[in-house]
């Protein structure tokens, strides 16, 4: 252990902590190296004082940035210590932490040191050392710096489980205003390349395809030497495969599939992250953007990060404004509706109501807007219909369907199945009976739910008087983060 390691680790960890993603999920693997494995569901190892889980060793390789993004703590013009890890040093540190079961793997990100390619080369060196020299088979999430060359991205993708390119801002206008050196094209190019490589990989591995049993180096996936994307930029044509010169002298069909870490390109997919509250976009714009990202790039997750004012700049909310935590929370709820409940962004937010209601969750709001579709009979409804009922989630919906195969669902059973009855009872019938009392009008129901959420908040505040929670912040602000945004618009 070197003496400077402690300082580097704390400084570079501190700089990385605003990166949201810490998930170690998406790809299960047994130990194919000397140490390490990955669980499909991911494993959290500890929780920091802000209640966020710490699963991966989330750290920057360097915070010595040449860019000057307005919202960022590491921007070139900011004061503060600059540190850079040696790739070897970080690889050893990761292994030692991993041996002690402190972490589930490595989340390696970096400021732009000298140039995107220079940074990516050093990141790759660190990851390669981990995989090849230390025999590490645990989880690796690598952040891709916009503007990196496609060859390097390919190499990094083969040693990492998950890749992410931060989209940073919901619209390109905000991006050019706040991060003038990051171009939208430079962000979308690596995203496109990752998506296309994965599609190609899936196609080639599909049953009935003669490519399927070829060893990794000849599948057109391990593109290290084949030059599949080399020189074509990110928009590599799908037809490029046929024109690609193949390596000669190998076996056409291998006896056994290789079971090593570099068998696949980014097997746990890609994610991205955007900043909330630093720019004036409406929630509708944000949700539309994330819906488009899910559809177009088959993202695993689109993360939101409430902007914490760390920088005093005229383009940004003032240093005194609290982070829009409530807004971030409601956006995540809407994100869940997109991903697990079959909602579309247009259903959640209409043109007349472009922002989420921060007092109630978006599913309740949707149900109140479409009160005519309710109540729904749980014993006959389809899964999609069940999922529209507030208080019923994926687990309870599936339990209802399963029990229906052997016996009728009774009203008393619903609670045992995990249905949140204080919300659900207004929206369902069970065996033809409605249990929600007389409150069947949207306005009245809204009042009921509002009172309930207020009461819960007050109880929470009583339990935990020392900390400032989102509700206090909202009250102090006089009703939501909207004033903060208009303030921001005024300053433009």
């Amino acid at each position, binding site marked *: *252990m070197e003496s400077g*390691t402690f300082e580097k*680790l*704390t400084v570079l*960890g*501190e700089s990385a*902590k*605003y990166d949201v993603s810490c998930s170690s999920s998406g790809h299960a693997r*047994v*130990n194919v190296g*000397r*140490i*390490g*494995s990955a*669980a499909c569901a991911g*494993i959290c*190892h*500890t*929780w*920091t*004082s*802000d*209640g*966020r*889980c*710490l*699963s991966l*060793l*989330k*750290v920057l390789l360097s915070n010595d940035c040449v860019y000057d993004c307005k919202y960022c703590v590491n921007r070139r013009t900011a004061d503060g210590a600059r540190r850079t890890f040696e790739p070897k040093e970080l690889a050893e*540190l990761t292994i*030692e*932490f991993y*041996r*002690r*079961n*402190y972490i*589930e793997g490595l989340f390696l990100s970096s400021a732009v040191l000298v140039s995107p390619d220079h940074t990516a080369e050093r990141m790759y060196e660190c990851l390669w050392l981990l995989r090849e020299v230390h025999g590490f088979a*645990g989880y690796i999430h690598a952040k891709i710096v916009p503007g990196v060359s496609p060859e390097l991205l390919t190499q990094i993708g083969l040693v990492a489980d998950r890749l992410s390119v931060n989209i940073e801002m919901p619209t390109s206008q905000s991006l050019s205003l706040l991060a003038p050196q990051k171009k939208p094209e430079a962000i979308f190019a690596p995203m496109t390349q990752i998506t296309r490589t994965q599609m190609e990989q899936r196609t080639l591995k599909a049953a009935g395809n003669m490519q399927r049993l070829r060893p990794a180096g000849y599948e057109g996936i391990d593109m290290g030497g084949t030059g599949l994307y080399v020189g074509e930029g990110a928009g590599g044509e799908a037809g490029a495969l046929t024109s690609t010169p193949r390596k000669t002298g190998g076996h056409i069909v291998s006896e056994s599939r290789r079971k090593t870490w570099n068998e696949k390109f980014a097997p746990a997919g890609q994610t991205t992250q955007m900043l909330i509250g630093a720019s004036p976009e409406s929630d509708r714009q944000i949700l539309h953007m994330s819906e488009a990202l899910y559809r177009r790039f088959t993202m695993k997750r689109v993360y939101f990060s*409430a902007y*914490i004012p760390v920088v005093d700049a005229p383009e940004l909310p003032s240093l005194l404004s*609290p*982070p829009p*935590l409530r807004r971030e929370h409601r956006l995540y709820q809407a994100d869940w509706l997109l991903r697990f409940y079959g909602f579309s962004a247009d259903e959640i937010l209409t043109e007349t109501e472009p922002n989420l209601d921060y007092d109630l969750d978006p599913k309740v709001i949707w149900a109140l807007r479409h009160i005519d579709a309710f109540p729904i009979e749980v014993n006959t409804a389809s899964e999609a219909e069940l999922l529209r009922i507030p208080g019923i989630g994926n687990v309870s919906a599936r*339990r209802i369907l*399963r029990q229906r*195969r*052997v*016996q009728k*669902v*009774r009203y*008393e*059973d*619903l609670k*045992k*199945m995990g249905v949140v009855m204080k919300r659900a009872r207004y929206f369902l019938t069970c065996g033809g009976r409605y249990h929600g009392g007389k409150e069947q009008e949207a306005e009245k129901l809204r009042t009921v739910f509002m009172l309930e959420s207020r009461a819960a908040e007050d109880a929470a505040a009583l*339990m*935990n008087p020392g*900390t400032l*929670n989102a509700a206090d912040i909202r009250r102090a602000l006089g009703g939501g983060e909207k004033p903060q945004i208009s303030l921001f618009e005024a300053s433009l």
Partner: protein
Amino acid sequence: MNYIYDNTYEGFLTCAYHHWYTEKAEGIFPDELYQLDLCRYAMSVETDAAKAERVLDAVNARISTWDAERIYKVFCSNEPEKEMKMLRYIALGFRHGPKIRLMHGDPVVKAAEAAEQRVGREVHRLCGLVRFSEARDGISGNTLLYAKVELDNDVLEFIAPHFSDRYKSEPFVIHDVSRGKGLFAYGGEWEVMPLEAALPIEASEDEHGYRLLWKGYFDAMGIRERANPKTQRGFMPARYWKHLPEVSGL
């Protein structure tokens, strides 16, 4: 009739055998927990492998192997009066067969599900919350990884496959201090054995340094503007903190 058994799984299955072939059970207790009940006869059941196997075969054949596994998980939980809950589940299973697992609304199924879920949660949580120290064997001088835990449920054998695969190139020990049991593993093989006394080992030279690094990193990662100790404790209950270097002050 109350049955008293020796706190082994076979012992419980033998009690289940007697429930059907001798007399209905009104309570089944492990011997260390039994308190004299003047209203009922109590019988100390001698564990009989053949009888136990007959019950287990019946469960496998008439319910399913999946449910047999669930019943074993309930046995490993610290659920109060788990024996009667398991027995009721088996009885209900004999009546309904494998579809018992679809009856989510039934109180008997619900009770077993809840206990099984708690075991599953602890297994998953432990995969993250076990902390190894690099230790040196006082006799041979070899290094090994050693972790101390205090478990709620008896889940050492459920976490064993995960850790023995992950650390297959190094010997390690996970010591359940509260039960006096240890999980010993090396090279992908593992075994759970009684471990009452402390092992003759001492921390290696680097150990303290890495703990300091980890604690420093952990403290740096909390975002002050978002402080939320309640959520932190919700995910990481305080009873685990004793063995976590990042929060216990090394």
